[in-house]
């Protein structure tokens, strides 16, 4: 989201030139088209989470856990929304003064001072719309993690984890990259959340798997997805919603949003085809789950790059996403032996790392002139951007890994992370919620 908005012949500009009397200097100039697009993008990203992600995950678990898995995304949406409004947005997206490298201030806590204001990153859109748009990112990031410990975590522990992780991991990382913190200042580029969302959630997911251990019966019992129709609906809504995620991150309606949308669609499609092809060759059959997972891998991987690269590069990124995430989810996971129930690390974590590095390769001023005319990525002649990106990857991965581990250990000591063995065998739907699908 660090970017200059490329708008050709912007009507506002010319109006300002001719209408100085309106005291345009003090009042922000809201653009109804930009605002309309951000309002819609907010809707789309929320829809990615509920019902998109909820169904994506719910279809992959066993039938006895379908409700417990799906409701996580809803409960997280409610919890994070409240926390975001109360302090999260303010800490992530305001100027923290002396601490600004690390964290923002409380000046926007409880939505204080929003009226009549715009945020610096989106100067043509009311700030309350920007807060809402960012809220949907804050919601979906922890919700993504939930796929890693599906079918075995207590609902109470899950809620505590999500709340603490939001405040102590998501909020600072968002500030570092987008809110004025040290990574953004160091030139790390992340258009729509390859680092802040996908890498971050993926690393947290990996730590969750390692801390919590495997599901009872993992590797022996039949744990195949019980209803991939749900997963297909979920993937589809993730896909269409991702246009709000990536093209919305242009924070304006115009050509840059168009570039981000086109790149997103091309990368997702390419990665789906690549995953399908690899599986067809390696296994003899292209699975439905493979095609769907490939698309999500492509979507995650293009996210940091969507508004920086040319569409041919998006296709290359799609190829890399399909191949590398396949390898991580299918080969690497089995070799290492951890139980990442729904492959959050293999798809989001690996995709986020991959995409964030490839930004350093393919970012170009032709699409987004973030360096004010200077070369941006390797294709522009600035190979150093790759190192900058690696710096961002490493900083966030290490911080997120350690912080997630601490949060989990504290919750485990306080109330325990896992359901009992009997509850796990019985199924979480009845055990945790007293309900079941007939």
């Amino acid at each position, binding site marked *: 989201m660090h970017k200059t908005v490329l708008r050709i012949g912007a009507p506002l500009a010319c109006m300002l030139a001719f209408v100085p009397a309106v005291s345009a200097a003090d009042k922000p100039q809201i653009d109804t088209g930009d605002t309309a697009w951000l309002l819609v993008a907010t809707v789309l990203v929320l829809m990615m989470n509920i019902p998109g992600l909820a169904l994506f995950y719910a279809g992959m678990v066993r039938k006895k856990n379908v409700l417990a898995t799906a409701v996580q995304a809803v409960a997280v949406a409610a919890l994070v929304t409240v926390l975001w409004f109360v302090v999260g947005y303010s800490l992530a997206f305001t100027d923290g003064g002396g601490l600004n490298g690390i964290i923002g201030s409380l000046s926007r806590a409880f939505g204080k001072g929003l009226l009549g204001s715009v945020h610096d990153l989106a100067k043509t859109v009311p700030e309350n719309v920007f807060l809402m748009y960012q809220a949907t990112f804050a919601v979906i990031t922890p919700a993504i993690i939930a796929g890693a410990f599906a079918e075995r975590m207590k609902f109470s522990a899950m809620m505590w984890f999500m709340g603490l992780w939001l405040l102590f991991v998501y909020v600072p990382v968002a500030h570092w990259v987008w809110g004025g913190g040290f990574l953004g200042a160091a030139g790390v580029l992340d258009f729509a959340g390859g680092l802040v969302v996908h890498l971050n959630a993926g690393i947290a997911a990996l730590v969750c798997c390692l801390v919590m251990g495997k599901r009872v019966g993992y590797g022996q019992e039949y744990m195949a997805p019980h209803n991939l129709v749900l997963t297909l609906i979920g993937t589809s809504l993730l896909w269409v919603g991702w246009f709000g995620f990536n093209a919305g991150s242009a924070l304006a309606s115009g050509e840059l949003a168009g570039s981000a949308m086109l790149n997103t669609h091309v990368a997702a499609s390419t990665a789906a085809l690549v995953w399908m092809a690899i599986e067809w060759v390696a296994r003899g059959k292209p699975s439905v*789950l493979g095609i769907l997972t490939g698309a999500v891998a492509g979507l995650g991987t293009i996210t940091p790059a969507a508004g920086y690269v040319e569409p041919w590069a998006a296709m290359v990124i799609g190829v890399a996403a399909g191949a590398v995430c396949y390898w991580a989810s299918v080969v690497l996971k089995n070799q290492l032996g951890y139980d990442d129930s729904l492959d959050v690390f293999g798809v989001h974590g690996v995709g986020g790392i991959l995409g964030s590095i490839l930004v350093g390769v393919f970012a170009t001023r032709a699409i987004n002139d973030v360096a004010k005319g200077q070369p941006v990525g390797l294709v522009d002649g600035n190979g150093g951007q790759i190192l900058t990106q690696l710096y961002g990857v490493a900083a966030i991965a290490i911080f997120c890994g350690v912080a997630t581990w601490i949060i989990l250990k504290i919750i485990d000591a306080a109330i325990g992370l896992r359901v009992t063995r009997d509850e796990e065998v019985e199924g979480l739907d009845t055990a945790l919620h007293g309900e079941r699908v007939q």
Partner: protein
Amino acid sequence: MKLVSAIIKPFKLDEVRDALTGVGVSGLTVSEVKGFGRQKGQTEIYRGAEYLVSFLPKVKIEIVVDDSQVERAIEAIQKAAHTGKIGDGKIFVTPVEQAVRIRTGESGSNAL
């Protein structure tokens, strides 16, 4: 009276029903079951996890018939359910001591 139970391939159900009504069987009860036997199951693969699904979908048909009808019923089922490939299924016969029609209270052969 005897209970003739047959475990057959699901797509043969309609043919077997027609064959049975053809030999005078007037009622039957069907359940969906899963079978394990010589027929080998399918391999399912999910993101690298392979499952050998050893249980295959089958249909169980139960008919209670007069002793005199047992042979004809078995024959009818066997003919209709036959494909010649492994997994065609089995027919079992067990004795029935009493039968009652709930609607009328009739019992014995009249209840069938």
